[in-house]
């Protein structure tokens, strides 16, 4: 019962963080701040994506970071030329797996 209560309360606080500026038409971010709101997406998503790319398994290391960065560049190129998320993901993951396979063949351990 306590577990159920914990996740229900967790859901409520999550909903509050998401709804706070949407719930009322009068409640708005300050005018001075509004022009910076388009920066929120790149900042928050960058804070999730970049650590995962530079340290895929939690730490920066040559054997993990270099293949991941190459895959990220390939992902960007795949998206840049097609504007398709699926293409970018397939190109990036495909190249990453290929690099890892070559590393295994060369006896490089991750």
């Amino acid at each position, binding site marked *: 019962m306590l577990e159920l209560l914990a996740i229900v309360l967790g859901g409520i606080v999550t909903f509050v963080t998401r709804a706070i500026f949407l719930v009322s038409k009068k409640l708005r971010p300050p005018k001075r*701040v509004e022009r910076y709101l388009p920066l929120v997406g790149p900042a*928050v998503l960058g*804070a999730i994506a970049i650590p995962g790319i530079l340290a895929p398994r939690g730490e920066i290391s040559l054997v993990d970071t270099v293949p991941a960065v190459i895959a990220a560049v390939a992902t960007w190129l795949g998206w840049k030329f097609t504007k398709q998320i699926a293409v970018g993901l397939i190109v990036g993951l495909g190249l990453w797996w290929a690099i890892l396979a070559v590393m295994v063949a060369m006896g490089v351990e991750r």
Partner: protein
Amino acid sequence: MITPPVPLNEDDRVRAARRAGIRAAGVIIVSYIPFGIAAGAAMGATSVDPLISILTSPTIFAGAAQIAAVQLLHVGAALGIVVLTVAVINSRHLLYSAALAPHLADWSTPQRLGAAYLLADPVYALAVARFDTPDGGGSTREKRTFYFAAGLTCWVGWAALLAIGIVAGGFIPEWVPFELAIPLTFLLLTLPLIKNSAGLVAFAVAGIVALVADPLPLGVGLMVGAVAGVVAGAVVLNVTDRNRAETVDA
């Protein structure tokens, strides 16, 4: 003789928006398959009742916070600690809420509440990428239809993946590496949102600061990185605007 294309009416455009939302979110869900199932498997391996773990999807609907909540319940953390942890991890949604508010200004209150419930990371990214286009993502009906189609597809897909992982977890072979799938997906979600040098600086600074701040407890590093990114981007935006103004004056 070539017949000119017939302009789409409102109903056709709304149907197209629905298809676009489902398609865009569907791609995201496919990329989430390894992470969702692995996360579910990790949750299924705890002492927490599988039904409770499954219920974290409709209640919290935010991957990292769901995993953290179940792990804390597993180690016997107090109720207040679990709720506080979820609140801190999901505090970034405050920024999403503020950024999305202008786009949803003409929606009804129940619609905005529904939108808030679905406002997870990929839903925000897909919505803003569409709403920030020159046509603003179309009419209010088109925008609403796209948002709910994308949001509900993400909701159903994520809940299903997690449930599969919880119930049947551990069937992904350990030798198949998938840890890069989620970072690359978030990179792809971010790229359409980077429209100028300020956006690029916000992205880079946020990522590097989040990485440095990663050892902080409760996943606070993510929020620290995000705030640092917004501040750095704002500085660049102010400098470029001032330079532009001086050029015009000269």
